[in-house]
């Protein structure tokens, strides 16, 4: 995402015309806190995330432990500190979300550009293939692929990227298709510019903005999908913490220790909502000049 953002946001017309609203900054702030936590996680973690501590299992949030420290978010069924688990999980969740969107976005960008700019049979084949995939429930497809590949962080990224690239491809295709027929592209053609130059200099810059907007929306959805897969036991292996896996693990204790499932669910909801708000803000910025 960071590779995309600077190009699109610094387009002069956008910078000049409108500013991000306050809620977008709040969203960016929340995301920033989680990203920081994920990056600095190991330094901040009060405990080893996988070490078990059975005497202190299932303690509610705010409990004081034997050594005098406080488990602010409680402990889980094997005595692991929930805050530590959340921090460790944020690494995986954010990594999966970002990596999936980058890979899926890159694949979608290439396919969308080829499809939208060149058109013809390539477009027909790619678009129909995309349509077919979209018609198939994506979580079902993910379960299928994840089941074949087996649980690992790499595999879940691959799985989710495969289910998401179509969305990016469609967004990019639409904008490449619109730009292709603009007169300044004709003008470059008259100048003698080849397809490569026209694609990279004239068509691609128009595709960044919608792609970025799609990415911010998808990053949240991908994290939810990761959680779903992990919840089903098809995502992150049990020895690695992930929000989805933690929610799943707390399932049996919902009656007695609600915080195990609730804490990661709240974190997930907060990040997804914040990213969504940022995405909306970018889309609003992009809208007035949607014709470009």
């Amino acid at each position, binding site marked *: 995402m960071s590779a995309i953002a600077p190009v699109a946001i610094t387009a002069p017309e956008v910078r000049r015309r409108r500013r991000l609203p306050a809620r977008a900054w709040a969203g960016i702030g929340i995301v920033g806190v989680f990203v920081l936590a994920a990056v600095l996680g190991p330094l901040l973690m009060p405990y080893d995330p996988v070490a078990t501590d059975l005497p202190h299992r299932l303690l509610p949030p705010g409990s004081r432990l034997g050594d005098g420290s406080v488990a602010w978010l409680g402990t889980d069924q094997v005595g692991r500190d929930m805050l530590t688990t959340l921090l460790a999980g944020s690494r995986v969740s954010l990594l999966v979300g970002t990596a999936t969107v980058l890979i899926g976005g890159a694949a979608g960008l290439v396919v969308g550009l080829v499809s939208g700019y060149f058109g013809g049979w390539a477009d027909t084949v790619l678009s129909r293939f995309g349509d077919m995939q979209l018609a198939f429930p994506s979580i079902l497809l993910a379960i299928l692929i994840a089941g074949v590949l087996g649980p690992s962080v790499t595999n879940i990224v691959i799985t989710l990227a495969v289910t998401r690239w179509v969305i990016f491809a469609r967004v990019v295709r639409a904008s490449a298709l619109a730009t292709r027929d603009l007169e300044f592209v004709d003008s470059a053609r008259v*100048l003698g510019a*080849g397809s490569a*130059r026209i694609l990279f200099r004239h068509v691609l810059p128009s595709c960044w903005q919608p792609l970025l907007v799609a990415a911010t929306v998808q990053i949240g959805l991908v994290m939810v999908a990761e959680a779903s897969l992990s919840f089903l036991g098809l995502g992150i292996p049990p020895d690695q913490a992930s929000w989805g896996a933690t929610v799943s693990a707390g399932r049996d204790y919902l009656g007695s220790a609600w915080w195990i499932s609730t804490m990661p669910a709240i974190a997930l909801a907060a990040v997804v909502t914040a990213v969504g708000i940022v995405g909306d803000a970018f889309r609003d910025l992009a809208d007035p000049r949607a014709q470009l």
Partner: protein
Amino acid sequence: MTATAQETEVVLKVSGLEAGYERPGRYGFGRRRVPVVAGIDLAVRAGRTLGIVGESGCGKSTLARAIVGLRPAFAGSIEFAGADLASVPARRRRRMSRDLQMVFQDPYTSLNPRMTVAAVIAEGWRVHPGIVPRDQEDAEVARLLGLVGLRAEHGARHLHELSGGQCQRVSIARALAPRPKLIVCDEAVSALDVSIRAQILNLLGDLQSELGVAYLFISHDLDVVRHIAHDVAVMYLGTIVEHGPAADVFGDPQHPYTRALLSAAPSVRDRPDDGVQEIVLRGEVPSPTAPPTGCRFRTRCYMAAEVCERKVPEPVPRDGLPQSVACHFADSAGTTAPG
């Protein structure tokens, strides 16, 4: 090169051109050809201006776009700089575009709004390396800006910071940058206000006498074409109906359509009740993709006869006339009043 030699040298020769657009075939596979212009013959002389006039739907824009390679040519030839543009391989075609540039009607849509003025002008040198050494580009951009009546500091601006007339000057500088032999101007002054239009027309004239560039000047505005063109071709529904020196075509029009067009064009010398009876044609232009049989003008012509339905009139020079006219009754058109 002497003036006379320059005058007779032809830079662009179009023969029997049929062009239009392609639509995707069924299910997106294959292509369907839709011709818009057919049987086009014309020539542009070096350092001269050929004007093309006609109403919307006459195919003048399609013709311009076919010549610069934006629309496919289905038949005929476009001879330019010793090659047939209609049949050279794409790569060579692109190299040749250096000598053949175009100015579009609307500079705001035909220039990339994300680029600075300098980048817009210098793009031709990126595409065709070797025209201007990299270290002299800034100076050359400044020179071109001066040539079209802008200042060097305009180079750093974006297009939305300039007025319409200034943007059109940038378009002209961009077209001049690769030092072309011919510039196709497609309604290049039509979007401009009267006072600005005169500035740009003067600029085009000055550039021609200074640089010897030839223009293919397309416009619906007869006064503008009459002002700038040495030769003129009148188009109707995808064909050229009259073609010759501007003074003769405008001064002594032979084709009934040219006559109607000229009489319909408003002029500041007209008055509401001056008694001058303009020729008002009946009806409107038929679809260019399904033209009438025989003479394409016959459905609106005040002279149409049975022969017009059967036979396509050939554009032939008439006795003692400098222009060629595609009409079965060209010899009598000048004397017969519209009925």
